[in-house]
């Protein structure tokens, strides 16, 4: 059964103290792109408050997991150039291995990947069942049964699967099933397609003979190293969160039907939130928006949400 869905952003700032923010920010700037005026308003005190709110957001989501006690957490996330290279970019891909090996090191800080390793137990039989069911539902989804990262092998696995789980599942032995959704390398799946994908996952997890939680990772609006690096589309983020809060994720299907600078880069990861909404809404779920932080010094609209389902 599907009893809980969570959604959380994955900006690297969320996992490091304030002293590290500027170095990360500098690494994500694009030459010649001026920063928005809001940046100047974000004083040290404001950033302190952001960090507190980020910690509280994680704590709230962690409490939801602790209360629900899932048997498995299905994680929807996008690759950030670690697991895949131009050799092959899957639109969707299920990881069916025994465990996930990765690193939460942040390159911009010069961190050694071997000093930040994570290992997460997986649930291969369930992953294969999910994979088979998704194919049966008409999704042409890849599978990955062994890790052979092609992009940046030293990091092992896309950060979407290692970073949030390192906080939310710290000290836990709950297995995970990573599912990749291509949110960054064009051509990417449409909002309609990821909505259908989320609906299928919701139906499949609901029929599963164990307690499943869904964790979706990424977004909200941000474009590090892109044409609008540093800019946050607060209108867009508000639109997304409002409709998830109403249980109306179908309004988000058309989000990527147009090409636009404002939908490029990391903003594409909003796809995972659309999928989460669609999955939760198969059970009538409406998102509880825990927090939204338009953190310009992290050049990301940072969101936390959960769907508590019957």
């Amino acid at each position, binding site marked *: 059964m599907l009893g809980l869905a969570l959604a959380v952003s994955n900006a690297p700032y969320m996992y490091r103290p304030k002293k590290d923010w500027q170095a990360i920010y500098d690494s994500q700037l694009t030459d010649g792109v001026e920063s928005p005026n809001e940046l100047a308003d974000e004083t040290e005190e404001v950033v302190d408050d952001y960090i507190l709110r980020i910690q509280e957001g994680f704590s709230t989501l962690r409490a939801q997991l602790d209360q629900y006690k899932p048997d498995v957490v299905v994680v929807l996330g996008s690759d950030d150039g670690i697991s895949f290279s131009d050799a092959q970019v899957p639109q969707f891909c299920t990881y069916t291995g025994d465990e996930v090996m990765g690193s939460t090191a942040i390159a911009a800080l010069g961190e050694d990947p071997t000093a930040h390793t994570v290992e997460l137990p997986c649930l291969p039989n369930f992953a294969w069942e999910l994979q088979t069911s998704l194919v049966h539902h008409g999704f042409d989804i890849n599978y990955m049964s062994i890790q052979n990262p092609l992009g940046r092998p030293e990091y092992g696995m896309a950060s979407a699967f290692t970073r949030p789980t390192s906080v939310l599942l710290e000290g836990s032995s709950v297995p995970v099933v990573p599912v990749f959704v291509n949110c960054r390398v064009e051509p990417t799946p449409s909002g309609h397609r990821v909505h259908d994908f989320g609906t299928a996952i919701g139906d499949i997890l609901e029929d599963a003979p164990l307690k499943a939680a869904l964790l979706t990772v990424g977004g909200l609006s941000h474009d590090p190293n892109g044409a609008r690096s540093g800019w946050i589309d607060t209108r867009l983020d508000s639109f997304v969160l409002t409709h998830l809060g109403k249980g109306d994720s179908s309004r988000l299907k058309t989000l990527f*039907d147009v090409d636009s600078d404002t939908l490029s880069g990391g903003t594409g990861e909003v796809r995972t939130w659309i999928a989460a909404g669609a999955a939760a809404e198969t059970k009538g779920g409406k998102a509880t928006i825990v927090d939204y932080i338009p953190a310009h010094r992290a050049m990301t609209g940072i969101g936390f949400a959960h769907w508590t389902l019957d």
Partner: protein
Amino acid sequence: MSLGLGIGVSHAPGMYMKTEEQWDRLWHILSVDRGIPQPAAVYEEKGEHLQEMIRRIDAGHTELKRVYDEYDPEILIIIGGDQVEEFDRSNVPQLMMYLGEEAVGSIPGGQMRSAEGDATMTMSVDVDFSQWLLTKLVKQEGFDISFSRELKNLPGRRKGIPHAFINPASYLLDTERTKVCLIFENTYDPPSLTAKRCYELGKAIARLVKNDPRRITILGSGGLSHDPGGKRSGWVDVPLDKWFLDQLATGNGRATEAMYTFNSDTMVGGTGENRAWITVAGAMEEMGSNATVLDYVEARKTVTGLGFAYWPTQEAARA
């Protein structure tokens, strides 16, 4: 002859300015003086590069005028919006047809805003045609269109008809030869019309007029991406504009119905004026025509992605 020609064209005030000094002044008023951080590409708009942009804008206008004159329409339908020139929040129509005998407005050129006493032009409205089209659209096609028989600007507003109508008419229209039909779309004040509604309006107009014996042109005025004075003033969304024009060029105007289905900093402001183009696309695709895109100019000092396009038909070619 019926609906033989469609036109889509931007109407930004900077398009009528001919010197770098004028462009810089406009840019400062709309963006720099408001403290809005600017994209790097704007600083390349100077010297010969800027003069080349001005030449391309003039060439776009000239080619549209040539196509327009060749067809020589008897009626020009203009789809445009109001930017707090005629209406304030006391009554913002989503759709409105103007049924007065004449429509007067200030001719663009040189100044940011036309002052009292600027040169004006007077367009003759084809009241009978407009009334007929209004009635059909309301009673037969299900559009809830307001109408106005008197141009009465609100106190403190610019005099005359909004610039969305006058600016393209100023270089296309021969007022002695052609009457106009003016359709206001709410392109600027949210909540605005959906793109789907705008496309359907165009199709309905085409269905109604396609058997009319007169030569009719429909023109969508405004866009493309821009937000003058707004949070992203000067940040032209080039991928959006190119995608938009590509849909029109391939006869895929239906795809543009995705515009405005979500809220975003990039969809507000003048980008909403793409609605007028979408209505033309609906009309001309109903007539079996795809857009010919003449040019697209990323003119950040005019804070606008400038588009020039027309939809030809076989009937126009025979005209």
